[in-house]
């Protein structure tokens, strides 16, 4: 079991009132799964992703990642977990604008304390895995949106994480490029990578093998993807 979430609750205080963004979510995810998290905005799916990604801590509940209880870690310990176990893919790519693709891919390794030579070797390997080996020296602005997102995927993969978290990875792409990116994630999953995807588009969610539906801070749907199973 890679992810074991039990009764996760997240409460935000906003101007005197309380917002219960997550209201007791319990989910198990195994190694090698491809899960799509769906739901309307305000359903708690983004909050759930932030907790899974160790970007935030639950108000209560338990989160065990790869056998390690991480729900009560703080600050720099969470940073270490993010660095070693999790790869992020964002809607807006979040590449650093002034540096070439290869150095963007290197970035997590910099914080892992890996030497320059080893970083470049691994980063180039990941770029060729996403088919961009000949774009290593290009700055993000010189790449198309789909290429930028593939650089971001290479960056997520470079630390060999246990889990890829993709937050609306096709949201900023046209539909054809979006399909390419989803196909890439699907291929990675086929090679054994666990992928958790947040989306509100059914076209995107159908690439996943399991769908978690969120509403009002709770999981209201958990089923295998019928289309794929069929």
């Amino acid at each position, binding site marked *: 079991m890679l992810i074991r979430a039990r009764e996760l609750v997240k409460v935000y205080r906003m101007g005197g009132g309380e917002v219960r963004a997550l209201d007791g979510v319990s989910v198990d995810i195994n190694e090698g799964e491809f899960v799509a998290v769906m739901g309307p905005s305000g359903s708690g799916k983004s909050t759930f992703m932030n907790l899974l990604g160790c*970007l*935030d801590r639950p108000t209560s509940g338990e989160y065990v990642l790869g056998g390690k209880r991480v729900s009560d870690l703080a600050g*720099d310990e969470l940073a270490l977990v*993010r660095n070693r176990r999790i790869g992020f893919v*964002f809607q807006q790519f979040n590449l650093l604008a002034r540096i070439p693709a290869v150095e963007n891919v290197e970035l997590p390794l910099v914080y892992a304390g890996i030497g320059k030579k080893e970083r470049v070797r691994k980063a180039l390997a990941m770029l060729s895995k996403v088919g961009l080996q000949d774009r290593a020296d290009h700055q993000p602005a010189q790449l198309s949106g789909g290429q930028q997102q593939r650089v971001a995927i290479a*960056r997520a993969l470079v630390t060999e994480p246990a889990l890829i978290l993709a937050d609306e990875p096709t949201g900023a792409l046209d539909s054809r490029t979006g399909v390419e990116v989803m196909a890439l994630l699907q291929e990675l999953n086929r090679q054994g990578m666990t992928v958790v995807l947040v989306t509100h588009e059914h076209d995107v969610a159908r690439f996943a093998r399991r769908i978690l539906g969120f509403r009002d801070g709770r999981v209201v749907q958990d089923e295998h993807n019928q289309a794929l199973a069929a």
Partner: protein
Amino acid sequence: MNVVALLRIALRALAVNKLRSALTMLGIVIGVAAVIVMIAVGAGAQARVEEQIRALGSNLLLVMPGSTTAGGVRLGFGSGSTLTEDDVVAINREVPEALAAPALRGSAQVIWGNANWSTQIFGVTPEYLDVRQWPLAAGRTFEPAEMAGAAKVALIGATVARQLFGSGDPLDQSIRIKRVPFTVIGVLEVKGQSLMGHDQDDLILMPIKTARSRVLGTASAARNRTVGTIWVKAADEVDTKVIEGQVRALLRQRHRLAAGADDDFSLRNLQEVMAAQEASSRVLALLLAAVASVSLLVGGIGIMNIMLVSVTERTREIGLRMAVGARTRDILGQFLVEAVTLSLIGGLVGVALGTGASVAIAQLAGWRILLSPQAVALAVAFAFVIGVFFGFYPARKAARLNPVEALRFE
């Protein structure tokens, strides 16, 4: 992350906004340059004062007669005639570690051929040259027979020699001082300006007896053998304060002053006068450096301002770096190194500019400057500290960002 990696990130970030980085550095550049110039000029002035003290001789005491009262009006020090040649003899006899020399001062017009010049006349003894540490450039000093016989011989200062004789040789020439013919037996070496700025080489020395009886004196002065001032030089290894006390006690005893009475002479320790002057020039230099460092402080505030802007602009970058594993100290270090890089580059440019400006001042204004490596090191270190101090708050602000909010920042 090591410092080299952080430095590379910082330089790249600063290169993105070159103009902004340059303007931000400008405050530090100007501050450091001002500190360097002020210290260079201040140290130069101080070195000059010290040089003049050495030229004058730092172990000198100056004794002047006390005040006289004429019809209820007290005339200042030097107006009386309480010091005599016998006092000088007594000091030389009773205070073996001191050398005393009298001087009787006046002014007169000097004529040689059809050249004339008004200058100061000093009636002295041969010891005067020893006490003032004033060697002869040419000729000889007074002989005992000339002292005793009030011979009409004179030693002239370099300025007088130039004014009367131009480039000619003054030795053995006959000059007229107040219509009395004198033979020039020697020329004094150049001494330059005094601390107060007047020309010390504009003078004529003659035996004190000659001065008193033929040029300056009155009948009563001649009878009492009074002197204008007594210069006292302490032996090298002796504290001038000790000599000062001995001379004072001796003169009070000779003048039969009661225990509580005021001195009828004034005794000045030149070493103390010099020390005060030196201290005041040092205070001035310090004050100027302090004023200059205010602009360094203003430069530091400029850095803080721009770093705060930079942190806000790069909130998403910070969020991303946190998401891929940057720890608090990585972000803190990144922005701190960036601020320190700004201030250090500014500091180095300021050192170059300040050094150039100091040299220019020395060339154009003719001021003495003294560039010390310590001052340069101090200014650069100060710039470094400014960078750390004013960079810390923005860096901490960046390091404390919440990654979720930072990633969502538009």
